[in-house]
């Protein structure tokens, strides 16, 4: 637990830039905070009621008003200006994400993260794609571009140490990019209330050294276990769902139906 | 106090721009504007997101019929103005006559809208995705019924209020110095009319 207002060590490329903005604001607001509160206390003591004391009869000063209108305005504009660049770099995936970024698809659903890896050929929607549930594996030192979607409600893809947070919205595919700088084990959290299992909708994040990642991909991509391929395969679950639980109104309708979507899982 | 007591209540008077009832109605109408703009805003967002769910005008909706309906509503605004002008000059008979005319036109508008709803429903043009069977997509039906429905509700309430006003008029409750009730009724009625002209344009014509 930190009582010192420091952020956890960032492990992504723009993480430290975001933190620097945070610390800038912390310093500015910190100074204002101290000044105001101190002034408040001093006034309370200095100007407390004493017999025979009379308050100064003044209605204010336009000069002062202008000062404390302009100064805060300038300060916040500076903060806004400095935030702008980092924000766009972090959020606008296309354009800012390097061209060689590794594409991964993350589909959120109540209450798990289904991660589709491109497999050895590094291209999604090919035969060697494979799905891992609640396991996000990343290479270190290489940009990752995540296509974020949701099957049911709004979730939020939150990687605290990476300073990454993006809502996963059903009906939208949102690009998220970041580059891990330190190998290790981290956690993926859901930050948007998504139902009774929201609090347990976590996943493990493993950042591999690049060659370790390659080997992991090839061993996972090599075998294509039926359970883990995205399209409903020959598992019995899929059979009986396909057979009996798809409502007449068709596929699109069922896809936001917990009743059937639970069963489209494979 | 004395000069306050001397003043008749609901008529504009020197030194005062606008009296309570009228100001209250204007303020209320402002919030009505916000309500309809939220619905219309939603409509615009959805339509731009999914143009494919909207059919060409006249394929599903009966534009000529509704056009006639629109014309009637505009006429009802005119008759409302006549009613107000009448009472301003203390013409009780004129007030009653024009109020009745407005009521009839308003009621007819609602009637035709209901008839149109029934026809559309038979065509499979319904709110909601489950049973939607007409051209375009479910959003088309949903937005159509939501917007026209809430306008229709406003007209219906307006007609009821008009009847109430008419009853008072027949009791001779309004005079050339005290016509607040008629005036705010008119304000509301013109607003409803105006909203319809916007709805008709974006729902039926575009």
């Amino acid at each position, binding site marked *: 637990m930190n009582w010192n207002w420091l952020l956890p060590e960032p492990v992504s490329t723009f993480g430290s830039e975001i933190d620097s903005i945070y610390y800038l604001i912390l310093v500015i607001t910190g100074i204002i905070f101290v000044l105001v509160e101190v002034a408040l206390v001093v006034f309370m003591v200095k100007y407390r009621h004493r017999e025979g004391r009379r308050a100064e009869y003044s209605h204010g000063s336009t000069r002062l008003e202008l000062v404390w209108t302009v100064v805060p305005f300038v300060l916040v504009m500076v903060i806004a200006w400095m935030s702008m660049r980092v924000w766009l770099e972090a959020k606008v995936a296309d354009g800012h994400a390097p061209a060689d970024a590794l594409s991964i698809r993350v589909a959120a659903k*109540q209450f798990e993260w289904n991660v589709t890896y491109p497999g050895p050929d590094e291209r999604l929607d090919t035969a060697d794609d494979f799905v891992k549930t609640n396991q996000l594996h990343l290479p270190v030192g290489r940009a990752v571009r995540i296509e974020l979607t949701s099957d049911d409600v709004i979730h939020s893809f939150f990687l605290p140490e990476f300073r990454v947070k993006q809502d996963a919205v059903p009906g939208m595919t949102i690009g998220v990019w970041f580059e891990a700088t330190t190998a290790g084990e981290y956690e993926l959290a859901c930050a948007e209330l998504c139902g009774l299992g929201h609090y347990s909708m976590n996943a493990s994040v493993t950042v591999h050294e690049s060659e370790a990642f390659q080997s992991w991909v090839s061993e996972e991509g090599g075998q294509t276990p039926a359970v883990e391929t995205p399209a409903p395969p020959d598992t019995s679950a899929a059979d009986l769902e396909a057979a009996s639980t798809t*409502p007449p109104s068709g596929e699109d309708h069922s896809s936001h139906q*917990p009743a059937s979507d639970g069963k489209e899982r494979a | 106090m004395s000069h306050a007591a001397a003043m008749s209540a609901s008529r504009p008077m020197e030194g005062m721009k606008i009296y309570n009832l009228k100001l209250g109605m204007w303020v209320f109408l402002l919030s009505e504007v916000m309500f309809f703009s939220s619905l219309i805003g939603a409509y615009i967002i959805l339509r731009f997101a999914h143009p494919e769910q909207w059919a060409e005008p006249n394929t599903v909706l009966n534009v000529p019929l509704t056009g006639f309906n629109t014309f009637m509503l505009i006429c009802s605004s005119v008759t409302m103005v006549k009613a107000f002008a009448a009472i301003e000059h203390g013409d009780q008979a004129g007030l009653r006559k024009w109020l009745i005319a407005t009521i009839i036109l308003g009621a007819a508008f609602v009637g035709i809208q209901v008839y149109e709803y029934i026809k559309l429903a038979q065509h499979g043009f319904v709110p909601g995705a489950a049973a939607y069977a007409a051209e375009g997509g479910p959003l088309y039906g949903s937005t159509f019924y939501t917007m026209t429905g809430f306008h229709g509700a406003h007209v219906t309430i307006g007609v009821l209020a008009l009847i109430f006003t008419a009853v008072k008029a027949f009791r001779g409750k309004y005079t050339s110095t005290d016509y607040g009730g008629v005036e705010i009724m008119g304000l509301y009625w013109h607003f409803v009319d105006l909203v319809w002209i916007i709805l008709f344009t974006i729902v039926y014509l575009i």
Partner: protein
Amino acid sequence: MRRSLEAMALALLFAAASACGGGGDADTGGEVATDEEVGPAVSPDSAATVTGVVNFTGTAPPGEPIDMSEEPTCAEKHPDGATTEQVVAGDGTLGNVFVYVKDGLGSRTFPTSSEPVTLDQDGCVYHPHILAIQTGQDLVVKNSDGILHNINTQPTVNQGFNVSQPVAMETTRTFASPEVMIPVKCDVHGWMEAFIGVQSHPYMAVTSTDGTFRLENLPPGTYTIEAWHQRYGTQTQTVTVAAQGSGEVTFEYSADMAGRPVPMGEPIDLHDHGSDQRVAHAGR
């Protein structure tokens, strides 16, 4: 003023009505089976028995591996890896088949067993995978893992429930009407799956790996017996048993039956206007 009075009254009504609704939260759709008067019990001297076996030809597909690495607590409970239990075949026999008397009991009613049936969640797997229960009989859902599970039943005719168990605990529910079958899933652990068969009478069984089943204490008569398998579909047989007699039934399943439509309720329609009522009834 009068209007506001009515509004008040309305709201109070709301509160009152809903309060009544709330009271029953605990026992979802309880009582039903219990409050019918019980018919003439089957006299032991006339009681008949139906036994049988479910045969299986062809090679049964192996259970598919389940990746539990995301849930260490459960992974530990499966040292040599967990697999799905859809097809549990013995030597030419088929397990996990739900067998029950579909027709022939006429209008007879039977006492509800006071014995609760337990559905245990252990190692992120439901035990048993196929479960037979009588209407009104207590279903005790047990969480032996101590981690969050939610029991999401999706019946068609019955009132479904979706309740969570954040810690090791038990939840008791009942089903009001017969239904074959009620799927059960856990939204936290996608792989978890079980099926519950509900009958108003006690004449039902789930085959073990050796494919055998036994329906005892039947009144003499002619019965339609149905077998249900989540993957290979349903089959029916007719059998006639005399007083104190016994009947033999054999069901033949084969691997190539896979994928045939398995009778199962339509899913809850997202926009089913009845959805409230369905729930409301539960509260009775």
